[in-house]
Structure formats: C-alpha cells, structure tokens
C-alpha cells in the first residue's frame, strides 16, 4: 500500500465528521465518504505528491456532494438521526443548543454551509477553502459573511441590530 493510501486512511475521521454534518444520517454520510475515497483512489495518479492531500480530498467530496445534490442520493435536509452513543451527550441545555445549531446549519444554502464548515471544522485557511470550492477568495469571504450573519439570525431571531440589510429569514419561529 502506498503512502498516499495511508494518508487517505488518516483523513477518514475528518471526512466522516464533515459528511455527518452535511448529510441527513450516518449511513448517507458514510456513503458520501466511501464514494469520495473511491474517486480519490481512481484519481490518485492525478494527485501531485507533496501537495495538500486534505484539500484535494475535500475538493473531491465537495464536487461529489454538489453533483449528487442535483440527483439526490445522500439525503441532505432532514435532521440527523440520533447516533448511537448519544447517551453520553452533554446534559440538556447544550444538547438542545447543538441540535438547534445543526438544524440552522442545514437551513443555510449549501455553498455557505460548506465555506463555514471548512473554516470552522477543518480550520482550513481561506485560500485553501477557495481551492477546495473552486472559487475566488473574495467569494469565499462573502459566503462566509452571509453564512455567519444568517446563522446568527436563525439561532437568535431577536438578536438586534444585524448590521446588514439581509432579509430576515426566520426558520420556525
């Protein structure tokens, strides 16, 4: 097995976690990860050794996800099932907060959600996010702005003085 395969295995937990928040349930998320890994192996020849394998893999996942969104396969919008082991979650309040956060995330347009997750989850630089998403840096920054503003409104509709004149979209309340 080549070092590239080893490196892919090391990336699996990160890919799974990211997919878990994008997809509706754990099985769909693992389907997405599996498709990503298969695609990555098929194209491993195209990967230049020494370049950023993580950004490359996330770009594959991003493209798969975007194309599959048009031909739904991974189940995107419904909130996640309770995963096994949830009994060890933090007590009440923070569980509810995390659940509301996941719901609000899913209400964001896909491109905004991905920009935010790549930064917040993966701690990617803004330039890396631009590479993964295949858009200019300025586009990443404006998606990030919209994602953060809208998430704040969704989570706290009463948060006063949102400085931008974005439409006030209220999720359920």
């Amino acid at each position, binding site marked *: 097995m080549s070092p590239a395969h080893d490196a892919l295995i090391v990336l699996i937990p990160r890919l799974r976690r990211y997919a878990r928040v994008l997809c509706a*349930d754990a099985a769909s998320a693992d389907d997405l990860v599996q498709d990503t890994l298969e695609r990555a192996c098929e194209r491993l020849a195209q990967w230049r050794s020494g370049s950023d394998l993580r950004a490359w893999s996330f770009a594959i996942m991003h493209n798969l996800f975007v194309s599959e969104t048009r031909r739904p396969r991974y189940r995107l919008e419904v909130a996640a099932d309770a995963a096994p082991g949830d009994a060890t979650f933090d007590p009440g309040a923070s569980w509810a907060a995390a659940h509301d956060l996941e719901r609000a995330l899913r209400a964001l347009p896909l491109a905004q959600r991905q920009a935010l997750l790549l930064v917040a989850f993966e701690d990617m630089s803004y330039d890396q996010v631009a590479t993964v998403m295949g858009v200019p840096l300025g586009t990443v920054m404006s998606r990030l702005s919209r994602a953060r503003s809208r998430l704040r409104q969704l989570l706290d509709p009463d948060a006063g003085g949102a400085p931008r004149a974005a439409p006030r979209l209220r999720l359920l309340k």
Partner: protein
Amino acid sequence: MTADRDELHAWVDGRLDGERLRRFEQRLDADPALRAEAQAWRSQTEALKGLARDVLDEPLPERLTAAAQGIAPGRRTANAPGREAAASADAVRRARDPRLWLAAATLAALAWTAGWISHARFAPPGASLARTAPPEFVRDAVAAHVVYAPEVRHPVEVAATQHEHLVQWLSKRLGAPLTVPSLDARGWSLVGGRLLPGADGARAQFMYQDASGARLTLYVADAGGLSGDTAFRFDSDGRIAAFYWIDGRFGYTLSAQTDRATLLALAEEVYRQLTRASPAPA
C-alpha cells in the same frame, strides 16, 4: 468595506496576531455593534467546532478503510463493478432513497388533506353533533401524520432513547413545558418526536408505535386565538381518525389509522396524563 470584513473573519477565526490584532481590537473598542457581531460569530464558531466531534473517535468502518486502499467496495459487487452492476446498484439506492419516497408521501398527504378538508366541509349537517370545520392545526396534524407515520428511516427527529433531551428541547422551542404521555400500558411505546413549523410558531409531533408497527401521533400546537378549553372532537376521512381538543395554550391532535372507540380511549388517557402533569390554574 471588504478589508474590514476580511479582518473581522480573521479575528473571529483567531487568525490575527501582532499589529493586525491590536489594530482590529481598537476598531472593536470603537464600535460596539461591530464588537457584538464579532463576539456572536466567535461563539457560533466555537459551537461549530464542537459539533459531531465524537465522530472523530469512532472506529473506522471496514468499508471505508477498504475504499481508501482502493479495494473493490463491498457495497456494490464483489468483482470489479461492471457498468451494469454499478448502474443497478445505483438504481436500488435511488429506489430506496427516502427523499423520493418522502416526495410521494407529501403528495399523498396533500391529496389526503384536501379530501379530509372537503370531507369536513361537505359533511351533511347533523351527521355528527355540532360538526364544525376543524381548526387549522388539526389539518396540519393530520398532514404531518400522513407524511411521517409511514417513514421507515426517519420517523422521528429525536428518538425516545433521548427522552429527556427530546422533552427539554421541544419545550424550549414551543415556549412552555411539555409533557409526553406514556402509553406503554396501552401497548403503544414512544418512538420519539420532531419539531415542525406552523403558521404561528413551532409545533411538536410525538410518535408512538404498537407491536404490529402501527403508528399513532400526538401533535401539539399553539392554539393561537382559539378561545378556552374544548371537549374532544372527532373527525376522520375514513382512513385517518383524529381526536382533537384545546387545553389552555395548546391544541392537541391524536391521529391514527384506527377505529373511533380505540382512539377515544387513547385520547382520554393522553388527556388524563396531560392534565395530571399540569393542573389547570384555579
């Protein structure tokens, strides 16, 4: 200004240091609204970092480590997947895709609801005592029952195994403490619940299941302007039977594909448990 915006994100993500950090902190000191937004974004980002963190520690599924090594996946065929095999596997996956199913169920729900409403509207006078068109929340409750009761993969959003979390979360979202009746003694166990949107706020649906797999839903909605407490009212389109009532702030709808007498007994039990949990103010 774009430069400001970029500095703001960099501050939120902890990517400023030295002179840039010092300068931006001064900007924040001078602009309380900007500081409020920056802090809200930062705490939002901290919360995001905590999401699904447990996934990182889960054991790796074998099918994924195999895929990472370029080994032919078990999900499709054991041999190198021919186009036909892959295509048929995809077809199976699509056919099982609950979203397609959900779309179909939603259409069915619309059709059913339309029938249900016209049924209510055109029922002959005197067909039952004091028949009036049911409130809007009852229509929504029946539609939600039709959509979610047949769901296989996602009948509920939060499972009954997380009972405490479920009740606290839905109570928070509906803005009042909720009680989930226990119907185990009647042979119905709680599957879980979900949050649903309504015209005037969030609503909750709790789902129960009996040994045969039949499903019963209790739908809780803010009764809005509807006044006072009401007696049980019954309606049915011939397939889905529903008892509904208003008690204090909330309207309740109990729906199932069952006969009136069975559902009435369950509705009485639900009502009893709900009033016991929160006795009406004197």
